[in-house]
């Protein structure tokens, strides 16, 4: 028995749910979380994002300096962004399939911030309705 915890983009919640159903896993628990990842070390990448954000911004409210400051604080890596945490219980054999389904559904061209998947051991599970325990309680 394994517990799969997957942190994914908010926007990808629907796609992930669909991918899970296709992979044969209907049951999951989802929580709204905020997260951040490793520091981005490639300066070209940060500059690219920075230009994109600056081109979207308007200086109507705080002025150019405020905008600049806001954009910088967005990209310094200390900011938390909204994400969705999926928790899925699975039989050992199904883990690779589920991980692959989640990965395929969530990969984007950005290459950063797509989330992470943790696979952890679970000792026991009990279905409240029937009192079944162990593997039988998962699906």
């Amino acid at each position, binding site marked *: 028995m394994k517990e799969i915890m997957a942190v994914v983009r908010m926007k990808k919640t629907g796609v992930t749910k669909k991918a899970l159903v296709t992979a044969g896993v209907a049951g999951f628990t989802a929580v709204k*979380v905020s997260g951040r990842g490793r520091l981005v070390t490639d300066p070209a990448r940060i500059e690219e994002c920075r230009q994109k954000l600056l081109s979207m911004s308007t200086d109507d409210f705080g002025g150019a300096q405020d905008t600049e400051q806001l954009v910088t604080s967005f990209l310094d890596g*200390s900011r938390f962004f909204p994400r969705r945490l999926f928790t899925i219980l699975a039989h050992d054999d199904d883990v690779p399939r589920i991980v692959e389904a989640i990965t395929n559904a969530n990969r984007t061209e950005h290459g950063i*911030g*797509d989330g*992470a998947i*943790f*696979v*952890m051991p679970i000792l026991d599970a009990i279905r409240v309705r029937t009192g079944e325990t162990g593997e039988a309680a998962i699906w």
Partner: protein
Amino acid sequence: MLLIRAIVRPEKKDDVLAELSSAGFNAATMVDVVGRGKQKGIKIGGMVYDEIPKILILVAIQDSDKDRVVKTILSTAKTGSDGTFGDGKIFVSPIDEVYTISKGAPIL
């Protein structure tokens, strides 16, 4: 690999995360939670408050970094010199596999 789940006071969250980041553990996930401890909640007047807001911080780390991370969280999340009820708890559990989705590979 290990998953550290730390429950800390909401007002200490920024300190803990900043300290973790400067210790080299920038990646973290944060959840708003409510809970109670062995004090059975707080009694104010006749009201018992047993759903006390806390922040749950999840950090995935290598086994060798465990002591450093735990020490960092302990020293920053503590209030007062001896600690106070409600400062929180740290749970450590094993992780079998970690996948970074953007890399599509099993690496932390």
